[in-house]
């Protein structure tokens, strides 16, 4: 986790050195889209920088898919503006489709075409497509190239869909719930693949309702609920904002007075349960607690450090869980 944070920072630094002329890949301003009886997207604004992985995270029905469908030109917004690398998807559909690769939730492919045939077909739509062999290798589909699409497993179908989103060498890849239905190993493989895509300079817009996915992959995340963005920041900042951030749990070697810790400015709360002590706080909580205890001759054993998560942030901001009405979702 720390290593990830470090690479993220160095990347941000590279951007800063470029003098901020790393452009804006996508600008959405005051987007609104209603369907009969519901407001799907309500006054949504965000900007995606070139080269980042931008997450749109929220529960099912939050308006995430509608937002990206407007971006790709599949739906016409009621109001608001969208600018994809300088193009308006409502006006310059062709240009937008040439630079954006999309993986959609509710789309399918011809069941009786073979994987290689589908890839070859979609490849022909673009002027400067990717090498299909390389893509098949990168996605682990090499041995499935002659298989009919309909004979593939759910995970394999997802990977074909991902290959098609990338086959046109897009500048922006929009991936809508790309790991839904994948087993844990396939999810992790897909995450690595997405990082590889970003490292090749592709801007990625990731729509997901999996908190761990957003935390792991995204440089910045928009938390979306009921058609609105409730918060937008880096995953770490969002999590800290939500709960003051940190918790440490330990078993003390000797009894000690609660006030030893509760008087520290970093500590916001202390709870005991059995042998365990649970301290909530912020900033440099862990070091401060352990040093203070050591100063009083107490050793903290079985130390567990917990950081607040995006899930905590979401609960705090909306009062609801991301997966309230869902069972068996990977956590």
């Amino acid at each position, binding site marked *: 986790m720390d290593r990830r944070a470090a690479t993220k920072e160095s990347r941000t630094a590279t951007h800063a050195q470029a003098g901020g002329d790393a452009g804006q890949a996508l600008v959405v301003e005051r987007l609104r889209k209603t369907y009969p009886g519901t407001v799907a997207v309500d006054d949504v604004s965000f900007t995606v920088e070139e080269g980042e992985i931008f997450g749109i995270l929220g529960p099912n029905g939050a308006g995430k898919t509608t937002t990206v469908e407007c971006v790709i030109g*599949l739906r016409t917004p009621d109001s608001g503006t969208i600018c994809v690398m300088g193009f308006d998807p409502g006006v310059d559909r062709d240009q937008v489709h040439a630079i954006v690769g999309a993986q*959609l939730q509710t*789309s*399918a492919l*011809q069941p009786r*075409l073979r994987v290689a045939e589908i890839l070859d077909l979609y490849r*022909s*739509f*673009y002027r400067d497509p990717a090498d299909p062999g390389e893509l098949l290798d990168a996605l682990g589909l090499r041995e499935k190239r002659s298989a009919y699409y309909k004979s593939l497993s759910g995970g394999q179908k997802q990977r074909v869909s991902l290959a098609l989103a990338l086959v046109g060498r897009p500048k922006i890849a929009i991936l809508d719930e790309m790991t839904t239905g994948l087993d844990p190993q396939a999810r992790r493989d897909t995450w690595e693949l997405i990082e590889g895509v970003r490292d090749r300079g592709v801007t990625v817009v990731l729509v997901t309702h999996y908190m761990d996915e957003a935390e792991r992959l995204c440089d910045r995340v928009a938390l979306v609920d009921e058609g609105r963005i409730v918060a937008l920041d880096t995953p770490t900042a969002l999590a800290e904002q939500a709960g003051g951030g940190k918790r440490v749990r330990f078993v003390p070697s000797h009894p000690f007075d609660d006030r030893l810790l509760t008087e520290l400015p970093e500590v916001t709360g202390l709870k005991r349960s059995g042998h365990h002590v649970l301290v909530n706080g912020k900033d440099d909580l862990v070091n401060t607690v352990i040093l203070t205890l050591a100063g009083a001759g107490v050793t903290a054993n079985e130390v567990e450090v917990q950081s607040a998560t995006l899930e905590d942030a979401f609960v705090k901001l909306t009062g609801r869980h991301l997966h309230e009405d869902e069972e068996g979702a990977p956590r």
Partner: protein
Amino acid sequence: MSTAEDVLVSRPPRAAFGKLLACDARLTWREPIGLVLGLAIPVVLLVVFGTISMAQHKAEPQLGGLTVIAVYIPILIAFSLGMLALFSLPRALVTYRELGILRRLSTTPLPPSWVLAAQVVINFVLAVWALIILVVGGAAAFGVAAPKNPAGFALAFLLAVAALFAMGLWIAAVARSATAANAMAGVLFFPLVFFAGLWYPQQFMPAALRDVGQLTPLGASVQALQTATQGHFPPAGPLLVMAAYAVVFAVLAWRSFRWE
């Protein structure tokens, strides 16, 4: 920002249409419903009616001096067109829409109209195959004379294709599912082939029924094809009827077509 170069770059290469056709052709072969409906059934009927005709060995005075099989070849051409246009063509497009294939394609630079065009081309090729098999097969196996007015015959065939394919595209436009498309096609197809004379050639129909039949697209097709077979240029009536169906249904299809 939108320069001429951008526009050029965003347009899909021509080769994409070739790839699309190749894929549709493979699918036609792998799911040969179009082949069965448009080619196999008419060929079986050709053999059936040809054999009946051979058994009778003589021209029917009621059929204007033609053999049964000579009368039936235009009817079987119309039958084949009806099958391809009303079942095969909309089936592919509606399935593409139902499964989300059209939706997926519409996020690529490929113009959605190319998908439609590819299906029209594939089914047109099947229709031409049906035409060749029926005319050449009829001549080779049952000694039916080739159409004596080829230009008129070709024109009648093309107008029939236009009328029927427009109806097929209209079904593709309004049907919400492949099942609904099949039902609509069935409801249209059987009355239409009745008026084409499949069960009862136009020559045997009461005058009133024949007059009604000649206002239907397949009735008009058969009338025009038979006239051309016998050596005359088809009269304006059936040609205009077919053209009218083509225009009306093309407009209806255009107005109501949904890609999702």
